[in-house]
């Protein structure tokens, strides 16, 4: 009970719950449509999804200020790449929220002449840019960690002195042997994959962030028409990313720190 109260006291938490519910409705609506459910039920699900979507827009009012504040903080990061990625991501997020506020004003009747389609496209574009920057940052973090892991591994090998002679020896598939390139490349690729898996396993916050951003990516890609996934996939991805977001709110240690 205490955990729920503390969790639900954050406005972001309610927005995430609302989002999870919205995409769950979207997924459910798609499933019901495919299995030939009654039109009445489908209409009801669609209506609920619309209410959730509009409700979330109100919950997001004022988030632009928060995103700008985050961008301001990110400017002080020492790492140049991280500084760029995170700052630009937050600025795009601020613009996304601003567009979202305009859409809300349009729907609520404050600004009836708002071109919903135009502003929606604009909003999703900024959202896409933000996600791309997030994934770039994730890729950079992964590369750094992989390099660290490789360095640590090499150092261990050197100290032990066991594998050095093995590396220096030509052996099968060494340079100069024709036809040995392909197995070697495959081996190298497999080693890279294993290394990546180990890095992600050892750093749950990074894994969660990658998964969340990857899942989120499908939403603007579909809405902007860049990659048609269909409402089922979008609903599923939205639901997964919302659950992951809620997870980082419940367990703050799973949040990726810059």
């Amino acid at each position, binding site marked *: 009970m205490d955990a729920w109260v503390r969790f639900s006291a954050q406005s972001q938490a309610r927005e995430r719950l609302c989002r999870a519910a919205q995409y769950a409705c979207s997924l459910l609506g798609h499933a019901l449509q495919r299995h030939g459910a009654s039109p009445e039920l489908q209409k009801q699900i669609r209506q609920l999804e619309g209410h959730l979507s509009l409700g979330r827009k*109100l919950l997001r009012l004022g988030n632009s200020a928060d995103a700008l504040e985050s961008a301001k903080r990110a400017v002080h990061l020492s790492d140049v790449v991280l500084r760029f990625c995170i700052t630009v991501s937050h600025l795009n997020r601020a613009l996304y929220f601003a567009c979202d506020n305009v859409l809300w004003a349009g729907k609520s009747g404050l600004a009836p002449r708002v071109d919903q389609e135009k502003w929606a496209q604009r909003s999703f574009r900024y959202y896409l840019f933000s996600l791309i920057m997030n994934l770039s940052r994730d890729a950079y973090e992964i590369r750094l960690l992989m390099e660290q892991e490789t360095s640590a591994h090499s150092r261990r090998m050197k100290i032990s002195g066991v594998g050095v002679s093995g590396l220096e020896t030509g052996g099968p598939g060494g340079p100069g042997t024709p036809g040995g390139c392909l197995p070697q490349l495959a081996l190298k690729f497999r080693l890279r994959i294993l290394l990546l898996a180990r890095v992600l396993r050892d750093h749950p916050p990074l894994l969660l962030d990658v998964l969340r951003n990857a899942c989120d990516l499908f939403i603007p890609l579909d809405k902007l028409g860049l990659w048609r996934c269909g409402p089922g996939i979008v609903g599923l991805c939205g639901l997964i990313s919302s659950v992951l977001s809620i997870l980082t709110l419940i367990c703050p240690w799973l949040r990726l720190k810059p």
Partner: protein
Amino acid sequence: MDAFIRVANQSQGRDRLFRATQHACMLLRYLLESKAGKEAVVTKLKNLETSVSTGRKWFRLGNVLHAIQATEQSIQATDLVPRLCLTLANLNRVVYYICDTVLWAKSVGLTSGINREKWQMRAARHYYYFLLLSLVRDLYEVLLHMGQVARDRAKREKSSGDPPKYSVANEESEWLQSFLLLLFQSLKRNPPLFLDTVKNFCDILIPLNQLGIYKSNLGVVGFGGLVSSVAGLITVVYPQLKLKAR
């Protein structure tokens, strides 16, 4: 900026901001309705008020659990009167939130066979009881503090040794002056109590109007809602100004 973000990051803070907006629109609408050529503005204010009111339901979902927790906490109060008042008040708040959730389910089309008016009256009634009990508790606290101030004053007068001055004429008005002065000093010494009293007093105008017990105009309800929302916001920004159960 930081202060705003801190407030906006709390559900309660954000809800209070939207509530203040909602009631400010109500007040402005009342003030502008009689003016000529302001129809467009009045319509926009009405739309904004409706949108914010509808959207705020999302902030109240799940608050029934908060109210249950508050009820559990109020049972722990040592003083009997606050314990009784707060427990009953919070129980009414739980019922109010349940009614509110039912109304929400109706508005989004999840349930069909719900009588909106009946449930709205039910919600308003329990909200009214909650506020009434909160005011009783506030009154009790005020009386305690007035007693304390009176004792402190008597102690000071005794130590100074001045003879008490009696005048038969204007005895009633003098008593009233003395009472109001005592009340003022008690509230001044205890800002959390003052804020809580103001908030509950302004809030109670809303269900009184809805239930038809005391009819006010749109302006009074709007103003009352605005003042109570601002008072609520102050307690979110400065948690030390929140009234604690003794």
